[in-house]
């Protein structure tokens, strides 16, 4: 019992710390990539406490709910967006045996719960009683619908290779040569995950130049902060999942397993930031085209490759 | 002898068949002078001529031997009969056979002579008519039918000829059917004679059932109860009145003048209308035995002769004058029959056949010449048509009963017979008075027609187009030879037939007749003389209108018979439309109305349907659990 409590406490702590780290990194990395410094004052050294200050500021702000909004849904939408990522972290193994709960169908659990997260955006978009928000919500729904498929296909490729749906089980089976073998699936998974997170260049639901802020237009204060937190938590979860499924998780030379996991998550988070800075936002039709014409066939190809190799090896 | 009779009947029939079927096959030449197919002319004339020759031979054959009784029996004493087959009907057998008697031979001669004359005459009269082949074929068919009536030895076979004559009459009256009035006249003639024929047929049945045979000789020989004879003869009389245009079924005859004039001569003067008289004479012993029938016939004849004569006096149409004259003269024959003298009747029938055919053919020539039927358009034709004038004068003289024309003798015989008739007193008195007055009126209308046609100023004007029902455009010349020859030949019997003097001339009554006739003629002449262009019929004064309209009999018929029938028919139509159709429509409407309630459930709401469906499933499930 104590074991379980400790694990959950560690996970909650990680859940609170890691997204902040990612957020701060994004501030700084983006700033430097854009030839500026970013936050420099909060906390002293290079503005390390900037996000904490932001959080304090958000908490202090008035919680505005539009008059025409559907109040209940408007209120719970940020929670629906955030909680699934917290739940997902429970089943992600950090080191050998270091996992919150080892589920038999962990991979399915992860994918299912991540899908629920999108509901938050849709609820927020609809409940705001704002046409930009509704448009954003619909875009989010369409985007989820399109990218869920390549995401699941790519993930199931790994599950097929390992012969299990358990995340720990997959890592137990993992060999170094899986890196090139599953590379294609990895790319597909990562890109589709980015799209599910609605991160640039897949941030059509938010698209501030077109529809202000999409579902989040009407949000302010702590609820908006929760949305931001959900986004960064999403980056962490995506990084962790990609690392576990395609990059070998805790496997790595010299360093202990959890360190390797964190390194891989960090690198992937950096890539996420990098991509955001590097690529412009896609158009809605380009987005759909990429999913159906690009990612789905690639995922199927990876699936076929996995199957062939699996049969040949056996 | 019987074979000859059969040939006489069959030849015109074959001619008719050939004319109908073959005259147009493969084109064939068209007669340059007549404007009709040459072959059709041959088909028309040759069979009739053959029949005429055979009739002469038959007459020669029949004249051998000795006979007593009526004059025809003394002329043609040899009798023969034969039958082809007996149709066994299960009740009374029908014997398909012919019988040659003196009467048959006599009337047969009349028929073929007039028919041949008409056929020849028609070639000229129907110049260029496109329907000439069928027309002449119908005349041949009619001739055949009439000869069948004459020579038939069996009443039902006779009836076949009788009906075919009616059909031909219908077809020929409607020859110019383009004019609606003509085809209506044809239909009227057909229907009115049919009405009489129904009675005729039932009379035949009565006789046949009573005598157990349809053979005329058997019927005449049978001992029949008086009641049967009276019933049968009265029924036969209906047919006779229809065919012979006796009151009250005479109305078709004036309208039948819509047909071509030769048809009027053939059918409606000499032959078909004579068939009724012939039948009575043929079955005369029966009529002699039926006193009530002869009384009825007498009254009918008395009314017919005077009424028709008065109507004739007021007509402007020459052919209608002759038509009413025909009704009147036929009534004379009927009167003779009623009076008990079949000899007088047949004698008058023969002479009348000759002179009335002559009159009609002459009228045809006149009409052909003038281009109009109306006497008001004629006048002064004496110079233009000398031959026609002479022959028609003979015809009118015979009609008036002036000596030495044939009519003088036959009419005298009739009046003498009426004078000495064995009839009920009142009927005889009526008949005799009527006959005498009619003689005067006959003189009057004959004179009027003669004067207005041939004397006085000419009023002929050419018509631009011939109307259907009239003949041809005025061409200002005497008729063609094919028309003149029959006229000339017919004038001989019309003039001379009386000298056969078969019946004793009663000098007393003859003198009275002559005086009365001349009196009528003189009055008309006096009126005409005072104003030659005006109609002498004005002497009738206020009676002119009723006379011209034939005493409104057609109007009365229309009111008494036609209109009620039309009302009834309209009532039936109305009942059908409202009651019968209403029931049908009402059932449909009721169904629609009721279905409106059913339709409430069918409102298109799928949810309601599914609700019903599920409720039904539940009920079934519960039922299955509870009951099963």
């Amino acid at each position, binding site marked *: 019992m104590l074991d379980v409590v400790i694990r959950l406490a560690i996970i909650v702590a990680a859940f609170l710390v890691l997204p902040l780290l990612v957020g701060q990194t994004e501030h700084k990395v983006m700033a430097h990539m854009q030839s500026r410094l970013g936050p420099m004052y909060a906390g002293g050294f290079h503005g390390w406490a900037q996000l904490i200050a932001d959080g304090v500021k958000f908490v202090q702000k008035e919680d505005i709910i539009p008059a025409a909004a559907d109040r209940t849904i408007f209120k719970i939408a940020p929670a629906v967006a955030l909680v699934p990522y917290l739940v997902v972290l429970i089943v992600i193994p950090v080191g050998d045996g270091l996992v919150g709960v080892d589920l038999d169908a962990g991979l399915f659990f992860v994918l299912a719960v991540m899908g629920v997260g999108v509901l938050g955006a849709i609820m927020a978009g609809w409940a705001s009683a704002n046409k930009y928000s509704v448009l954003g919500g619909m875009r989010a729904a369409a985007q989820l619908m399109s990218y869920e498929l390549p995401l699941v296909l790519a993930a199931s490729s790994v599950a097929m290779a390992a012969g299990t749906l358990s995340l720990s089980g997959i890592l137990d089976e993992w060999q170094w040569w899986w890196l090139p073998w599953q590379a294609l699936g990895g790319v597909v998974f990562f890109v589709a995950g980015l799209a599910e997170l609605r991160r640039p260049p897949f941030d059509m639901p938010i698209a501030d130049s077109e529809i202000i802020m999409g579902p989040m237009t009407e949000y302010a204060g702590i609820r908006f902060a929760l949305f931001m937190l959900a986004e960064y938590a999403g980056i962490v979860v995506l990084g962790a999942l990609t690392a576990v499924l395609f990059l070998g998780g805790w496997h790595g030379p010299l360093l202990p397993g959890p360190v390797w996991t964190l390194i891989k998550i960090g690198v992937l988070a950096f890539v996420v930031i990098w991509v955001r800075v590097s690529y412009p936002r896609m158009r809605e039709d380009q987005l759909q085209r990429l999913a159906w014409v690009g990612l789905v066939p690639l995922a199927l190809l990876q699936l076929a490759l996995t199957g062939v190799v699996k049969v040949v090896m056996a | 002898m019987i074979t000859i009779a059969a040939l006489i009947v069959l030849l015109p029939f074959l001619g008719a068949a050939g004319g109908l079927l073959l005259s147009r096959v493969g084109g064939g030449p068209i007669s340059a002078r007549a404007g009709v197919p040459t072959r059709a002319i041959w088909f028309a004339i040759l069979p009739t001529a053959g029949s005429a020759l055979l009739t002469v031979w038959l007459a020669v054959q029949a004249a051998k031997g000795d006979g007593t009784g009526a004059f025809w029996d003394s002329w043609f004493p040899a009798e023969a009969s034969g039958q082809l087959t007996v149709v066994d009907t299960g009740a009374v057998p029908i014997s398909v056979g012919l019988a040659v008697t003196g009467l048959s031979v006599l009337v047969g001669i009349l028929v073929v002579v007039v028919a041949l004359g008409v056929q020849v005459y028609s070639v000229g009269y129907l110049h260029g008519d496109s329907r000439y082949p069928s027309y002449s074929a119908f005349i041949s068919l009619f001739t055949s039918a009439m000869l069948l009536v004459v020579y038939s030895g069996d009443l039902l076979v006779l009836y076949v000829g009788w009906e075919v004559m009616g059909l031909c009459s219908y077809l020929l009256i409607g020859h110019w059917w383009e004019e609606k009035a003509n085809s209506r006249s044809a239909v009227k003639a057909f229907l009115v004679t049919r009405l009489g024929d129904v009675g005729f047929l039932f009379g035949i049945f009565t006789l046949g059932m009573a005598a157990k045979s349809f053979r005329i000789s058997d019927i005449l020989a049978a001992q029949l109860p008086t009641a049967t004879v009276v019933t049968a003869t009265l029924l036969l009389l209906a047919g006779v009145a229809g065919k012979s245009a006796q009151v009250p079924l005479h109305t078709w005859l004036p309208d039948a003048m819509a047909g071509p004039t030769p048809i009027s001569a053939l059918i409606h003067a000499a032959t078909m209308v004579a068939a009724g008289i012939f039948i009575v004479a043929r079955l005369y012993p029966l009529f002699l035995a039926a006193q009530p029938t002869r009384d009825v016939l007498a009254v009918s004849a008395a009314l017919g002769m005077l009424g028709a004569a008065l109507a004739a006096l007021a007509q402007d149409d020459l052919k209608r004058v002759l038509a009413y004259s025909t009704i009147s003269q036929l009534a004379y024959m009927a009167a003779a029959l009623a009076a008990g003298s079949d000899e007088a009747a047949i004698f008058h029938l023969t002479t009348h056949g000759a002179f009335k055919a002559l009159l009609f053919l002459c009228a045809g020539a006149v009409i052909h010449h003038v281009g109009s039927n109306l006497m008001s358009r004629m006048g002064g034709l004496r110079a233009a048509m000398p031959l026609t004038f002479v022959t028609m004068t003979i015809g009118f003289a015979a009609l008036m009963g002036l000596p030495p024309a044939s009519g003088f003798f036959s009419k005298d015989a009739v009046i003498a017979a009426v004078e000495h008739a064995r009839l009920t007193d009142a009927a005889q008195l009526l008949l005799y008075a009527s006959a005498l007055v009619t003689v005067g009126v006959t003189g009057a209308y004959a004179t009027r027609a003669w004067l207005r046609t041939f004397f006085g100023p000419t009023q002929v004007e050419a018509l631009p187009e011939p109307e259907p029902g009239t003949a041809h455009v005025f061409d200002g010349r005497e008729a063609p030879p094919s028309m003149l020859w029959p006229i000339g030949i017919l004038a001989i019997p019309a003039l001379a037939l009386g000298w056969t003097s078969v019946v004793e001339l009663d000098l007393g009554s003859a003198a009275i007749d002559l005086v009365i006739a001349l009196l009528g003629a003189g009055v008309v002449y006096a009126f005409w003389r005072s104003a030659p262009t005006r109609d002498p019929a004005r002497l009738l004064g206020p009676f002119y209108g009723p006379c011209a309209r034939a005493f409104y009999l057609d109007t009365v018929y229309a009111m008494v018979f036609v209109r009620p029938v039309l009302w009834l028919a309209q009532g039936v139509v109305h009942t059908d439309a409202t009651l019968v*159709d209403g029931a049908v*429509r009402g059932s*449909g*409407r009721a169904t*629609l109305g009721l279905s*409106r309630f059913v*339709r409430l459930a*069918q*409102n*298109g*709401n*799928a*949810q309601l*349907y*599914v*609700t019903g469906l*599920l409720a039904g499933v539940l009920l079934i499930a519960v039922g299955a659990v509870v009951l099963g």
Partner: protein
Amino acid sequence: MHVVYPAVISALLFSVGVYGVLARRNAILVLMSVELMLNAVNLNLVAFDVWLRDQLHGGQVLTLFVIVIAAAEVGLGLAIVLAVFRTRRTVDVDRLRDLAEPDFPQPSPNGQAKVRESS
């Protein structure tokens, strides 16, 4: 566990779905109610599969099939609903009355049925 529990819950769920299908006016709500009924069936399938200890897992496999078919059904159903909305600007099932006979033939005085002009 008593088999009655999942069975009764599934029966209730099914009945709720029946009510929804029959009472709801919006076509999408009707689709949702159909989903409820399908889920009731799924629950039954799973429960009886577990109860019968089916070595072939027929019940659970069938449940998976039903879920897949339900996804396809919703996709098609929504496509139909959207097509209806595009053409009629409404998705109220009780306003889609094309199943009803469109015109009532009125008998005209001359006895021939005349179809009224539909507006």
